[in-house]
């Protein structure tokens, strides 16, 4: 492997024992930081030896390639062995005679450093870690000596830290025992062992080292010096101490000698090590020999996919070709009812794709994915590919994706090309309730030895960092809470800046004050200064595979990492560093400020020239305005939290918080990423059990996979697919209509009418407030409009101020122009506005002369979770390239800004198209089958944007007849019931055998019968009990219900209060529920006391007195009359029990009070009020939003008995009455009406809480998600 040129002569020392932050809570530096420091020190190599973990190995190796430092992969393994007192530590040379780890023996854990010499050794190391993790209790990994012996080949062992087996014996002065232990290791590793010594300035260590060297000499073993590094620089010791505190769950003051006695555990220079070991320099020199032996590099990993089982005599390519041909016939063939008949173009595209797949040897991969999709289909699990796979005709023919890429002219090369070095990425969405079935199928099919899920490394964010550091420093819980609330930012670094009072300079390293500690910031700045921010290395390089780097390392490096910014602004480039994430102009729209955008002559103007980025803040607590305050003495966060800024600990707080920036905190499971390998996966990467049952995860994140050539398949859960799946099943049963998503009429203008009206509650992707505001402006009239709509309301286009220009151009209010003629073909279909990732790639190729490979790097940066850092790395190259192509610098910068906006997540066109299909499908089903759609969405809860009550209110407004809960008819789930006169029976949504099939597609719309599940507080097992009891026949009375279900009193009371028993009682409507409750209480009580029998009839007497048809026995005996409920009480009871009322909206009861005071209903507002008019509205708050893209503006949605009202609140007004707005369920708002193209908003000025016991407090709202 070629090395990069190093400016320094190589040092005569290699650190062979070094922990990164992946030794969770015992390492204070990221792998990249350690490598950067190693390069500064001139190390020829550095070993990574995390505790039972290889999570940082890929990042470490990539950073090593970047810095020209050889990355030795290793780990410090925990070995479990019997205490020496139990017998011999060594029994001859036979592994079989090693001490047994019998459970009755006392056991001790020791540490052993293992370094990979060869590929086999690496595989053994990963296997050992897997066994340590999988076979022991969670969080207590260890392997036995027997396991070690079985997997020792290719590994070189160091005797480890003071907790090592040999050193601990030596430290006790038991030199003979230490010799025996070392000899055991010597046998196991076939003399590939070295004794490890250290000196951190402690007398104890020096004494131990003296014994250890004696052991080495006695056994003629080499001995090496290490510094057992746990952080990169001495000043990082504070961060390590903080981590130690978190591990012990104690504040610093109580740690005592649990902390290390000094700060010597950092990467030291060769000169320092030589000075310290001047009395025995051979130990320092020997490190080079060991490093030389450990020649394994991550680039040697060549994992392969499992072979797909094929019919005899058929190759994978042939089999794939057959399947594709068959699929093409189904998609475009004569019988396919397709509006897009098969042409030569189709065949040409398929041929092209198959040829490329064959050339890249990916047929097996496609077959594996096809097989997973086939399994889902067989099980009736709705699924659909998303992402760039939708660009492929092969995927379309295999049924993996549902969007026709040829019809939509999608770019196949976005998905797969020869230039791309990594495997294509296929993400598949499954109906979320059944996804686990698919996951377990994959495990079962390929075996847990070959399949595992990808992990997600959770790092410290602003909130967690402040809370943990405050706790460690000894602040009270309340102080920590206050600090957390006040300083809440997304990243720990930005939070640290906020604590320093650098509110508006968050994430601008150059603006930072000098830290009190030497700290992480200083390190990062220094590292960045020389090398590009160390923590960016992984992100910036993750797109590169080791093989690619091996061929063209220097070129790739220069392509990606240049310019080596020091993280500070550079005036010549307009300050466009990674830290300059754009921020929209003052906005009152979720996607930007129309006036601000409209006033521009050319939207390509840099909208961010004078702005800096502010990170997302907690929407409910971040009240403070971000505008610079006129009063320079205004208290900062520290003061507002009631802390003394002069206090030493308070001063330390920001630096410690920043020190945790991006450090891994714990490991979680990726949302759906799977990796499969032909060889045992544990020889590629350690596997460990996930917190979820029956799941296993690898120790690498998704960004670690590409560099080593692991292929990931994303098996994701998507609620809308569950909804559509259920809805289609209901429609089949109620109407006899089979809806085929693949053959929907995509031009149905009635569906588009709904979308244009923003009548989209429950519709996938376009039900949010921002989408609903855009729809009437965009006026979608064809499928591609929906693709644009989906892509448009995303943080990327919003922050890039692309929304309003696009809408204005679409409305013909603005001329379609292009910043450069070369961009016209690329941007024409989106009216000159870049909306999709593909366009970003094409712009880079056309304007900056990027190769497709480099454009792909750009694309990956745009979609990467650490994309801001990566985009920054590519920035200069893009701008330089454009300048070389004759594009003026200012234009180049504007183009860059637009593309940079995608760093906040833009969609690829194919992905938007896949989602748009679901948008249309859900809108279609909602339009034509509203009862079924409503039943499906209610039975799929929790999902979507709106609460049950809002969905039902909306369904009622769309003519769905909703029937109340009635235990005689209601099932646990919501059901559909045939209208009277049309058969009259319930049609059901559950078991199809119980439902008569209605052949006619013209069957009338069914009624929606609310299910018992909507009643709160029935318990998790109630559904099963209820359905089981119901299977014996309909309930005939309250007593019958109580007897058969044996629900507890609380559940029965809820049922009675919700009106589920109303049908059993002959009472006035307003008296039924209390009467039912009185009866329930009577029926549920056991044996009566001495007084009760006198006033009761026997059961037999009651039956005799009961009326015909088994009418309720309660009618036969005198019942004490309870007070009647008022209509408002009825609504209140409904909302309290179910979150919705069929007896009237809460606002209905207040209308007679509000109307005389000029408060308009939603319907009146829409039809009578005028733009600019001052109005008053009131309603139930069903939605509160404060998008990160809206600069503090808050958006409320109020619901009343006639519809919904949108309210916009400026940041200042919100801050003044934040608590009221955030917590009041019923709100009266006065403000100014704003109407724009049928979009109606009230710009709020005054707020008043409405106090009324009408159930509003029980309504659920969608708040600040």
């Amino acid at each position, binding site marked *: 492997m070629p090395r990069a040129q190093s400016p320094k002569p190589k040092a005569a020392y290699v650190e062979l024992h070094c922990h990164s932050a992946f030794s969770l809570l015992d390492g204070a530096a990221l792998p990249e930081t350690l490598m950067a420091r190693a390069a500064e020190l001139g190390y020829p190599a550095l070993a990574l030896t995390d505790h039972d973990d290889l999570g940082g190995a890929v990042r470490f190796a990539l950073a090593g390639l970047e810095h020209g430092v050889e990355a030795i992969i290793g780990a410090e393994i925990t070995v479990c062995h019997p205490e020496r007192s139990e017998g011999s530590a060594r029994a001859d040379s036979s592994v079989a005679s090693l001490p047994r780890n019998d459970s009755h023996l006392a056991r001790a854990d020791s540490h052993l450093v293992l370094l990979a010499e060869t590929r086999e050794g690496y595989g053994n190391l990963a296997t050992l870690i897997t066994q340590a993790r999988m076979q022991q209790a969670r969080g207590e990994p260890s392997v036995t000596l027997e396991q070690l012996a079985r997997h020792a080949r290719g590994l070189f062992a160091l005797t480890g830290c003071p907790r090592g087996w040999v050193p601990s014996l030596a430290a006790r002065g038991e030199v003979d025992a230490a010799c025996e232990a070392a000899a055991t290791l010597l046998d196991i590793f076939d003399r590939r062992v070295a004794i490890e010594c250290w000196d951190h300035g402690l007398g104890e260590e020096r004494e131990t080292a003296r014994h250890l060297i004696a052991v080495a000499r006695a056994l003629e073993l080499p001995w090496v010096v290490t510094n057992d590094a746990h952080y990169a620089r001495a000043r990082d010791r504070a961060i390590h101490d903080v981590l130690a505190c978190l591990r012990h769950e104690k504040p610093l003051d109580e740690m005592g000698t*649990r902390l290390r006695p000094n700060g010597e555990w950092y990467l030291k220079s060769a000169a320092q090590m030589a000075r310290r070991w001047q009395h025995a320099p051979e130990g320092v020199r020997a490190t080079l020999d060991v490093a030389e032996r450990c020649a394994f590099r991550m680039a040697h990993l060549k994992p392969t996919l499992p072979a797909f089982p094929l019919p005899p005599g058929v190759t994978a390519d042939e089999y794939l070709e057959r399947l594709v041909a068959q699929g093409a016939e189904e998609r475009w063939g004569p019988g396919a009812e397709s509006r897009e008949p098969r042409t030569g173009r189709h065949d040409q595209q398929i041929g092209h794709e198959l040829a490329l797949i064959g050339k890249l040897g990916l047929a097996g991969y496609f077959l594996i994915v096809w097989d997973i999709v086939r399994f889902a289909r067989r099980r009736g699990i709705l699924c659909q590919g998303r992402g760039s796979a939708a660009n492929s005709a092969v995927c379309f023919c295999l049924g993996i994706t549902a969007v026709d890429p040829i019809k939509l002219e999608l770019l196949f090369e976005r998905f797969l090309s020869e230039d791309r070095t990594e495997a294509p990425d296929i993400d598949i969405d499954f109906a979320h309730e059944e996804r686990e079935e698919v996951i377990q199928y994959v495990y079962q099919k390929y075996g847990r030895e070959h399949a595992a899920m990808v992990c997600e490394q959770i790092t410290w964010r602003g909130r967690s960092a402040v809370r943990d550091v405050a706790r460690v420093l000894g602040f009270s819980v309340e102080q920590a809470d206050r600090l957390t609330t006040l300083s809440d930012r997304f990243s720990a670094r930005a939070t640290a800046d906020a604590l320093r009072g650098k509110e508006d300079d968050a994430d601008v390293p150059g603006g930072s004050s000098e830290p009190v500690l030497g700290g992480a910031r200083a390190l990062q700045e220094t590292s960045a200064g020389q090398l590009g921010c160390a923590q960016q290395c992984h992100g910036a390089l993750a797109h590169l595979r080791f093989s690619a780097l091996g061929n063209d390392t220097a070129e790739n490096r220069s392509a990606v990492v240049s310019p080596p910014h020091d993280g500070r602004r550079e005036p010549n480039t307009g300050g466009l560093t990674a830290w300059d994430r754009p921020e929209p102009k003052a906005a009152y729209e979720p996607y930007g400020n129309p006036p601000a955008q409209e006033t521009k002559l050319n939207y390509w103007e840099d909208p961010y020239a004078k702005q800096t980025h502010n990170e997302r803040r907690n929407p409910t607590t971040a009240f403070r305005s971000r505008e610079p305050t006129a009063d320079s003495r205004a208290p900062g966060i520290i003061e507002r939290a009631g802390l003394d800024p002069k206090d030493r600990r308070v001063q330390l707080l920001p630096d410690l918080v920043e020190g945790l920036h991006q450090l891994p905190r714990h490991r979680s499971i990726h949302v759906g990423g799977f990796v499969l390998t032909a060889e045992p996966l544990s020889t590629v990467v350690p596997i460990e059990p996930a917190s979820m049952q029956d799941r296993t995860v690898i120790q690498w994140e998704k960004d670690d996979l590409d560099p080593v050539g692991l292929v990931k398949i994303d098996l994701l859960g998507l609620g809308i697919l569950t909804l559509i799946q259920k809805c289609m099943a209901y429609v089949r049963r109620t109407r006899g209509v089979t809806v085929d998503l693949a053959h929907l009429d995509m031009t149905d203008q009635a569906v588009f009418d709904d979308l244009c009206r923003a009548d989209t509650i429950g519709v996938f992707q376009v039900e949010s407030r921002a989408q609903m505001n855009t729809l009437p402006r965009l006026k979608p009239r064809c499928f591609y409009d929906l693709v644009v709509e989906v892509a448009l309301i995303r943080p990327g286009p919003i922050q890039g101020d692309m929304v309003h220009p696009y809408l204005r151009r679409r409305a013909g209010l603005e001329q379609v122009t292009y910043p450069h003629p070369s961009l016209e073909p690329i941007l024409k279909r989106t009216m000159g506005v870049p909306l999709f990732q593909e366009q970003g790639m094409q712009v880079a190729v056309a304007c900056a002369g990027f190769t497709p490979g480099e454009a792909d790097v750009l694309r990956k940066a745009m979609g990467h979770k650490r994309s801001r850092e990566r985009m920054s790395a590519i920035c200069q190259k893009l701008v330089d390239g454009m300048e070389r192509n004759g594009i003026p610098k200012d234009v180049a910068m504007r183009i860059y800004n637009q593309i940079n906006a995608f760093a906040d997540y833009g969609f690829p066109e194919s992905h938007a198209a896949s989602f748009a299909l679901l948008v249309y499908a859900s809108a279609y089903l909602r339009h034509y089958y509203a009862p079924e759609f409503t039943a499906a969405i209610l039975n799929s809860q929790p999902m979507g944007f709106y609460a049950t009550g809002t969905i039902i209110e909306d369904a009622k407004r769309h003519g769905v007849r909703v029937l109340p809960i009635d235990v005689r008819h209601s099932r646990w789930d919501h059901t559909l019931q045939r209208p009277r006169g049309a058969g009259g029976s319930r049609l059901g949504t559950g078991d199809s055998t119980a439902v008569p099939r209605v052949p006619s597609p013209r069957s009338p719309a069914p009624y929606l019968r609310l299910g018992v599940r909507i009643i709160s507080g029935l318990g998790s097992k109630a559904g099963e009990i209820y359905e089981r009891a119901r299977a014996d026949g309909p309930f005939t009375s309250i007593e019958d219900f109580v007897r058969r279900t044996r629900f507890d009193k609380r559940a029965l009371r809820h049922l009675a209060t919700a009106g589920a028993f109303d049908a059993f009682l002959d009472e006035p409507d307003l008296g039924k529920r209390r009467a039912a*409750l009185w009866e329930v209480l009577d029926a549920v009580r056991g044996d009566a006391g001495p007084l009760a029998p006198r006033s009761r009839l026997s059961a037999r007497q009651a039956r005799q007195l009961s009326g015909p048809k088994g009418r309720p026995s309660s009618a036969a005996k005198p019942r004490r009359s309870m007070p009647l409920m008022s209509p408002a009480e009825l609504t209140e009871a409904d909302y309290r029990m179910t979150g919705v009322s069929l007896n009237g909206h809460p606002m209905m009861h207040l209308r007679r009070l509000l109307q005389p005071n000029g408060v308009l209903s939603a319907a009146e507002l829409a039809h009578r009020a005028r733009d600019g008019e001052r109005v008053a509205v009131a309603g139930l708050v069903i939605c509160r939003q404060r998008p990160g893209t809206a600069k503090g503006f808050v958006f409320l949605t109020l619901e009343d008995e006639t519809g919904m009202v949108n309210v916009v609140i400026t940041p200042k007004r919100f801050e003044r009455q934040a608590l009221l707005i955030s917590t009041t369920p019923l709100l009266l708002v006065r403000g100014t009406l704003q109407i724009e193209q049928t979009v109606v908003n009230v710009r709020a000025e005054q707020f008043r809480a409405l106090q009324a016991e009408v159930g509003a407090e029980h309504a659920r709202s969608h708040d600040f998600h």
Partner: protein
Amino acid sequence: MTLSEARGLCAALEILPWDDVAIDAAITAVTASLVAASPQVSPVAGAPGMWWVGASGFAQGDEPGIAQSLLRIARAWHPRPRVAIAGSCVAARAATWSAPGNRRGGGVLVPAGTDAQYLREVPLSLLPMDVELREALQALGIRAVGGFADLDAGDVEQRWGHEGLAAWRLAHGDDPRRPVLARLDQPPHVELELATPAASMEPVLFLLRPAIERLASQLARAGRAIASFSITLTLDDARGALPTARAHTVTREIRLPRPLARAAPLLERCRGLLGRWPLTAPVSAVRVTVLLASPLSADQGSLLDTSWRDPGAADAALERVRAELGADVVVSPAARDAYAPERAGTWSNAGDAPGPTAELPNRPNYPNHPNHPKDNDKRSFSGNSGDLVVPAVHSGAALRLLAAPERVDVDRDPEPRRVFWRGRALTIARAVGPERLAGDWWQDGYAREYWRCESDEELGELVLYRDAGGWWVQGWYD
């Protein structure tokens, strides 16, 4: 009010976790203080902050006086206490919420025999009952106690059983609870209940103090002294919210060699008795009854008389020393877990209750590893394989620290060879080091290199360190 709302009103709000022990202690203290107003005081079980105080047995028409007396005592604990006097506990409790009475700040008096009538208009929430019953009644539309009282007893019992019936009886003012019934012809006594049953005698002793003080002063005012008294403990074998069964009591009598009017020696007798009294069940109440009183004599006590010996004499002596020399002069040594020698020990006030004993490591235990035994693991600091072992250079020697390190000059090569200290040149025969210690960076941090130096003098082993300021002697082992 939610926590966030409270924080909104008061930024400096300090929120303390619920602490049963502290609350019990506070209740016991208030109980003891209320004895000044009435000899029958019972904290209400399950309702911290509420007491039943016996008002019967006092002169007719003196209720306002008792109320004022109680209010005066209670104001030491709460700025706006509420007091009500009624024929039943349920009516009294409901009446404490009467707004007019509260505004006047003079308590509320419910006329005798009108409890049931008074309760009819009282909100249902003021009637003690099971939460489920209350919710059910509210769901039935019943809002006031009268509505509940109007239900048929059989219906109530059928639906809510005995507990419902008990609540229904309360709704009629029929409350069996009483603080303690006092009779005028009873011998002088004080009866007190504990907030929660105590498994030890400590809280009992705490309550005995005001009880005995009250009795002693009561008799002293009448020119009499206590010659014999008894202590009756009510044991909590089965204690519910409503007393339903006869309590299990145990009584011991104390006969004094001579009558006493001072509370202190009486208390000593009590302390001795309680110390020998084995408890078979937790104590829920205590009663002190004067069995025999005689005229008060003028005898003086004698320090030489063992019956007058005061076990608290040592404490008193130390108190005297503190009074003379300052509050913090009496101290005892305690070990601390720290690296720096001067931080490895501390002095704590001798009078302070000893805190939890710190478990100290034998040796520095620095290797911090995730697999490091947790603090609750018995292996912690017990010399496990991860601990470093210091060579036994000075095992058994005591470290004498100077009050403050003293600056010295050192000849070194590279180890210290001679130390110039207090005008003397000490030749170092053997030096062990350096030992690098640096820590406490979050407060007043330090960074030193330590040497232990054997000198030829009689000083033993000197403890030297070097920091940015030079060389220092910190102490020596002897």
